[in-house]
Each structure stands twice: as C-alpha cells, then as structure tokens.
C-alpha cells in the first residue's frame, strides 16, 4: 500500500521521553504502581504531551484489541491481586 503523506514537524528534544512515558509500562513497587522513572525528567509541557498522547494511543490500542482493551487495561488485568 502506498503510505499517505505525513505532515512535517519540528523535532522536540523531549520527544523520546514523551514517547516512553506515553506507554503503559509502569514499575510495580511492593505496595503500589509507581511513576515511570522518566516522567520526573519531563517538563510540564512534556508531561501534558505525554498525557494527550497516551489518551490518543489507548483509543487506537482498544480499537485494535479483540476485547476492546487498551495496553493500560491489559496491564491492570495482568496485575490483579
């Protein structure tokens, strides 16, 4: 399939951090789920971007999943206690 054109964008130095924080990975500490270690390194703008990106990604993930579950929901289900 011919890929559609993607609009150009200006790279942001925080892009790699935002991409990681927008994932559903979170370390499990004994008592609770902890913040992503990189989250603390993000600026307020980067944190807001990560939130918005995570919101958008989860919709896509849920739509791709046969049970309508995002990676966040899957992470929770894998950690039921």
């Amino acid at each position, binding site marked *: 399939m011919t890929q559609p054109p993607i609009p150009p964008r200006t790279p942001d130095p925080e892009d790699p951090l935002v991409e990681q924080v927008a*994932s559903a990975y979170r370390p499990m500490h004994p008592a609770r789920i902890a913040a992503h270690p990189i989250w603390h390194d993000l600026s307020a703008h980067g944190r807001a971007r990560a939130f918005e990106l995570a919101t958008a990604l989860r919709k896509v993930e849920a739509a791709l999943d046969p049970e309508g579950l995002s990676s966040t929901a899957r992470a929770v289900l894998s950690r*039921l*206690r």
Partner: protein
Amino acid sequence: MNEDLDFLVIAIAQGDVHAFSRWLASAEAPLRASLVRFATVVDTEAVLQEAMLRIWSVASRFEPDGRPHGLFRLAVRIARNLAISELRRTRATPVPSEMLAEEPEPTAWAPPDPMLQKVLRKCHEALPDKPKAALGARLASQGAEPDEVLAHRMQMRLNTFLQNITRARRLLAGCLSKHGVQVDPELLS
C-alpha cells in the same frame, strides 16, 4: 460513559475477570479524562492503573448509593485521592485548590465504532515491518516491560525502537485520515 456499568458490580465482586475487563474497557477513557488536571504534577498513568487495581480489590465491599455509575464514581474518587496523595508526598507547597475540587460527572464515552476498527485493522496491517513490530511488542508486553527491554529483545537501539513507535502511530493516523476518519492530532505529533 453512556451505559451504566453497575450491573457488573456483583460479578466483579465475585472475582469475574471477564466482567472486570468489560468494566475497564468502558471506564478507562473517562477515568483518565478525570485526571487531566493532574497531568503536569503526577504520573496519571500510574495513578490510573493503581485506581483500577483498587476497584478490583474493593468491589466486594461496594455499596450502591442509588445513583447511576456508582462504581465509576468510586473509581474517580479513588483516582483523585491517589493523585492528591502523590502530589502531597512529592511537593512541599500546598495542593492547589482547583485540584481538590469534586470529581466531574462521567463524561461521554462510546465503544470503538466497528467501521473504525475495520479501517484501523487495515491500516495496521499495511504498516511497514519495523514500525508494526515495535508497536506489536508494546501491545504484547501489556505494560509489563520498559521500552529498553523491548528494544533489546528486538535487537534495536532504544532510540530506533522509539522512532519506529512514532512512525507507526503517525502512519496509522495518516492512513485513518486518508480513509476519512478524524484522528487525534496527538497521534501525528
């Protein structure tokens, strides 16, 4: 969230994972949205996951108050309290009053449109190998492993892995757009 999911409470309280999955599928998006005011001060993904786990733990003790969306409203309260607690733990300054405000009413949330799912699957299928594999690794890990581990397993450098994730979501967004589906602008960022 249109459908009142409280009919699932009894099954969830009895440990029915399928019922809890169904609740999660509908409650996640509005629950995440309820945390937007905390997005720059606490890691809302961690708070969200913890709140969902606690709902599973406390469902057997949940007592309906007669109003709809009872379990969801409890989840919003738990998530808000976790966020405030985390904020107090990590900050010397008082928590801003706007963050202490009462939780919002449930927001609209519709399940994925079957047509959107069909188009999305087609777009996903058409992704180039490496972006598709990177995205697939993320989904398969179910949030259990950091990107460094996934990248290592795929014999990629972390930055290459992340570039493939970025490329995958941008290509998906471009493809959806081409099929007339309105996409979240963040997917193209």
